[in-house]
């Protein structure tokens, strides 16, 4: 599975990069000739919604991999115990709070993107 995760990390990174470059060149670096109506039409096109959906999915997958690495490294009994003696025994609680926070952020992003943008509500 190690190689699979390695590919997944790079594939999602490519999508993230492509999206950022596309948005940067299309709207941020050359903003002339673009007004609110152009922006509105572009961003509500089906192609843009698919691209944005891919971007969000990639961002979530890519972030989860990175955040899991942070959890493994810094929310273990060993590491917490190293920072403050005795804190290591609360590692499970720290990990639970950390994961709950991540899930909450993902749910909020999903809600904003899916209901307010992709479904056009």
């Amino acid at each position, binding site marked *: 599975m*190690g*190689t699979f995760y390695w590919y997944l990390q790079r594939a999602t990174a490519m999508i993230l990069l492509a999206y950022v470059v596309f948005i940067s060149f299309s709207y941020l670096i050359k903003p002339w000739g673009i007004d609110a109506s152009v922006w509105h039409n572009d961003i509500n096109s089906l192609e843009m919604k698919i691209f944005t959906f891919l971007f969000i999915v990639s961002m979530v997958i890519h972030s989860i991999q990175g955040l899991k690495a942070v959890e493994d490294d810094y929310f273990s009994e060993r*590491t917490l115990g190293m920072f403050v003696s005795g804190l290591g025994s609360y590692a499970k609680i720290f990990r639970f709070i950390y994961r709950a926070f991540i899930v909450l952020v993902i749910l909020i992003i999903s809600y904003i993107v899916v209901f307010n943008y992709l479904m056009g509500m």
Partner: protein
Amino acid sequence: MSKFLELSLYRFDPEKDQRPYMADYKIEYGSSGNMMVIDAIRKAQEKDSTVTFRRSCAQGVCGSDGVNMNGQNGLACITPVSEVAKGNKLEVRPLPGLPVIKDLIVDMKPFYDQYEKIKPFLDNDDEIATGHERLQSPSDREKLDGLYECVLCACCSTSCPSFWWNPEKFVGPAALLQAYRFIADTRDKQKTARLKKLNDAFSVYRCHGIMNCTSVCPKGLNPSKAINEIKKELRKIG
């Protein structure tokens, strides 16, 4: 250069001390005005016989006196004080990330456990065709240069943050260098099996390319390159 070295040694005796502490020693330089770090530690031991450290060959071959000198891992026997001292001050601590047994002596078990995992021996059940040894072409033999010279001092693995945080799961640069030594050996018949055993999220892929291992290796080896070669081989088998 000052006539004296202010040597600060990490001291911890689990039978006596509640916590580790740093002890200061004033060490006189010899007539050469320089010395190896191991000589400075030995002079400290002459002042206080309870100072405990590991050493054997004192020539950078046995790899038993790996320590942390002013923040950098290395072998005390081949590191001149002038190379690591800041001004005339030198702080010597045990290798980081491994449990301390006493003073500068660490428990190497987590390190050796990872070394054992990679099966550091030639695995080949085939009959020896020549009747006396397994032959290898000079070009195949060349592939092992820079891999077999490791003395297992643990300077690299204990300078690696990934090994500090996950010593049970991440194999570490020293053992991975040895893993690649056998993966690259054309006489070994377990290449695929060795690679499959390493193909998880931790064993190899926990290396984030920080390259502390390469910068501290007292033998001038490049574990980081070997790890990248393993990753390339892993991608070939999918």
